[in-house]
């Protein structure tokens, strides 16, 4: 980690750059801070490299004559000290350039057309429910200037990469007794599953009429970036029909009838795949493809084997590949090793892992294979309950954390209690872990934790705690050993003989966070 660095020619002014990524590119963002010996003077969040270098230049120019070459060398040296391989000429061009090059890049693009990818799917052996999405971009010419060419490639990959949605669209159609057809469109949220990497979607249709509705058709649009592990319709033996569309997989369910007040509920259990964006340059034409790659368990880790084949009848002059890992994964190693300039593992803060490859001159039929060994990114499950009484006043806050432990099989379970007002009764937190998991240690060791097995094959653990004083926190830390993932479920809470009677509000989210876990 590079600390603030003196502005050359000054002894009392410093600049610090904190990029959010280890990949040098014109789209890298980060924070630039300006200090004197008394401390921080100013700082600015920068959205791209142009803003970063211009901000350094602006800070520099507030105290010294700004010589562009000196500023560019300073920035290059700073990046080198951060372990980022940068390019002096690009930095200097960005410092000097008032105009962004966007307009010039736009001018290079003549036309973008969607292409039929059936041939690609056949050669790439794309699985039945997946698809390859492709566009062909014709250009006036491929620029000789490496900087403009790399900007063009970056823009086309960003513009055409598959966007992971946070909702699944659903179209519903049914008939009323008078023959009238009704249509309803909804967006269903993508929710957390039982364990890490699991995603669930529920698609529901409730009959709000006083009569039966018939000829019901529910069509859910599942994005190709998800693989479906399981899909069921509750209480009915119906198999859906799947249709591959341009950007999504359509899943159509036909239900003969729903009685008044009843509901049809379809549940999908899914996992996210690796989103691969492939950009091929052949003469003045550029092809951009999106493929979706499965991650499979392999022992205690995961593996993704991904193949690229040049299916064109010509040599691909330049190939760029961007593999975006699902956010819950980190890459342990890749084969071949991702070493610059051919490959780089980009780890952007709070954004996830992207593995990028580039190669020149790939002959017709040539195959390039990449294998990734993956493990879960350090995760934290935070289940929080705000407990209210019958009048809606907060009694206490309770939380359960599941924290992965590096280099060990198992995880840490942490329970926290904090009373907002005085509580006298004993508080119990009841939770479940997989039956094969065992408690190895607990802290404090004398706290009472009961264990039993329930009829669903889960191990139930109950922490029986004396209530902490008002506004004080009470913690129980349990280390669990188990070679399967933990359960991402909330717990039940009891105060004396009172139990939970209603969930007033529930929210869930998955996101990268900077946090401190010094229990």
């Amino acid at each position, binding site marked *: 980690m590079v600390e603030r660095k003196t502005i050359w020619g000054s002894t009392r002014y410093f600049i610090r750059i904190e990029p959010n990524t280890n990949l040098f590119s014109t789209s890298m963002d980060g924070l630039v801070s300006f200090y004197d010996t008394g401390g921080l003077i100013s700082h600015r969040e920068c959205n791209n490299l142009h803003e970063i270098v211009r901000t350094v230049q602006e800070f520099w120019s507030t105290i010294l004559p*700004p010589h562009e070459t000196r500023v560019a060398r300073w920035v290059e040296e700073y990046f080198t000290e951060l372990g980022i391989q940068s390019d002096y000429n690009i930095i200097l061009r960005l410092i000097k350039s008032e105009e962004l090059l966007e307009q010039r890049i736009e001018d290079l693009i003549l036309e973008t057309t969607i292409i039929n990818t059936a041939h690609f799917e056949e050669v790439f052996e794309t699985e039945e429910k997946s698809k390859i999405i492709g566009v062909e971009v014709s250009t006036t010419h491929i620029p000789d200037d490496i900087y403009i060419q790399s900007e063009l490639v970056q823009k086309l990959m960003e513009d055409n990469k598959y966007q992971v949605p946070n909702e699944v669209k659903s179209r519903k159609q049914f008939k009323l007794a008078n023959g009238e057809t009704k249509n309803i469109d909804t967006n269903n949220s993508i929710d957390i599953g039982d364990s890490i990497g699991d995603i669930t979607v529920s698609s529901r249709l409730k009959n709000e009429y006083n009569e039966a509705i018939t000829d019901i058709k529910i069509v859910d649009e599942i994005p190709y970036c998800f693989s479906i592990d399981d899909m069921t319709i509750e209480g009915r033996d119906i198999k859906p029909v799947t249709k591959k569309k341009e950007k999504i997989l359509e899943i159509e369910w036909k239900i003969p009838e729903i009685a008044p007040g009843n509901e049809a509920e379809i549940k999908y259990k899914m996992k996210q795949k690796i989103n691969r964006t492939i950009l091929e340059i052949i003469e003045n034409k550029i092809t951009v493809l999106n493929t979706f790659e499965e991650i499979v368990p392999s022992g205690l880790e995961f593996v993704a084997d991904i193949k690229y084949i040049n299916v064109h009848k010509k040599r691909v002059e330049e190939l760029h590949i961007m593999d975006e890992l699902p956010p819950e994964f980190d890459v342990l190693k890749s084969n071949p090793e991702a070493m610059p300039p051919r490959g780089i593992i980009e780890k952007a803060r709070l954004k996830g892992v992207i593995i990028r490859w580039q190669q020149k001159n790939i002959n017709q039929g040539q195959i390039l294979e990449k294998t990734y060994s993956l493990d879960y990114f350090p995760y934290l499950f935070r*289940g929080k309950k705000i407990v209210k009484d019958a009048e809606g006043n907060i009694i206490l806050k309770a939380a359960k954390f599941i924290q992965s432990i590096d280099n060990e099989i198992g995880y840490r379970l942490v329970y926290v209690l904090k009373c907002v007002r005085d509580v006298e009764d004993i508080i119990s937190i009841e939770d479940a872990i997989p039956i094969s998991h065992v408690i190895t240690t607990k802290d404090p060791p004398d706290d009472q934790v009961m264990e039993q097995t329930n009829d669903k094959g889960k191990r139930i653990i109950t922490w029986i705690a004396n209530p902490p004083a008002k506004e004080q926190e009470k913690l129980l830390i349990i280390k669990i050993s188990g070679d399967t993932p933990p359960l991402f479920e909330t717990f039940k809470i009891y105060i004396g003989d009172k139990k939970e009677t209603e969930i007033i509000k529930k929210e869930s989210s998955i996101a990268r966070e900077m946090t*401190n876990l010094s229990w």
Partner: protein
Amino acid sequence: MSSGAIVQDIIKEAKNIIVNQSVDEGLKYIESKTLDLEKKEKYLESIIVWQFFAETMEKLEEEDFQSYAFSKVITRYLYIENIEKAKEFYDKALKQKLDSFHLNTAKTIFERRSKGSTKREIIQIRKRDIFGDFVTILASPNLQFNTVSEIRKYIENQLPEGTFQVEMFNLKTNTSEDSEISTEKLDEYEVISITEEVRIE
């Protein structure tokens, strides 16, 4: 050509561009010309051009551009060690309540250099608790600081480790300011979060 004549030519051309093209184009022209002047160590000449731009922008009621010009004038006076003139523009900026990223940077540099002070009073400090919520903690209402970095030092030295949201009141500008300060080691996690409000009976 004398320095005075060069400056007059720049101002004349800048006026022409502002009138016939746009203020943006005028600023671009002035940026490039003052950069050339400063490379030749002609700081006073650069200041004259920036002062002209500041006055023109004031007449046109273009506050953002005026603020930017003031930041240039203040930092350049500081560079040639003319603290008195820098103060004159610093005071003018305060009086006119000019505010921008560049001007605020310049004002802070001036305050540090001239040992001037902008009193800030902490209104509220909130600390992130174990649940991930920010909870108000007790802080003396009489605590006053000259700079944001003094507040940072107070938080680093006087409070236990943590992540804080600090709300302060700037007594000179009569505005409140927010700052988030972390004094603990933070690690990146993929956080899967479920929050429930439950009723218990």
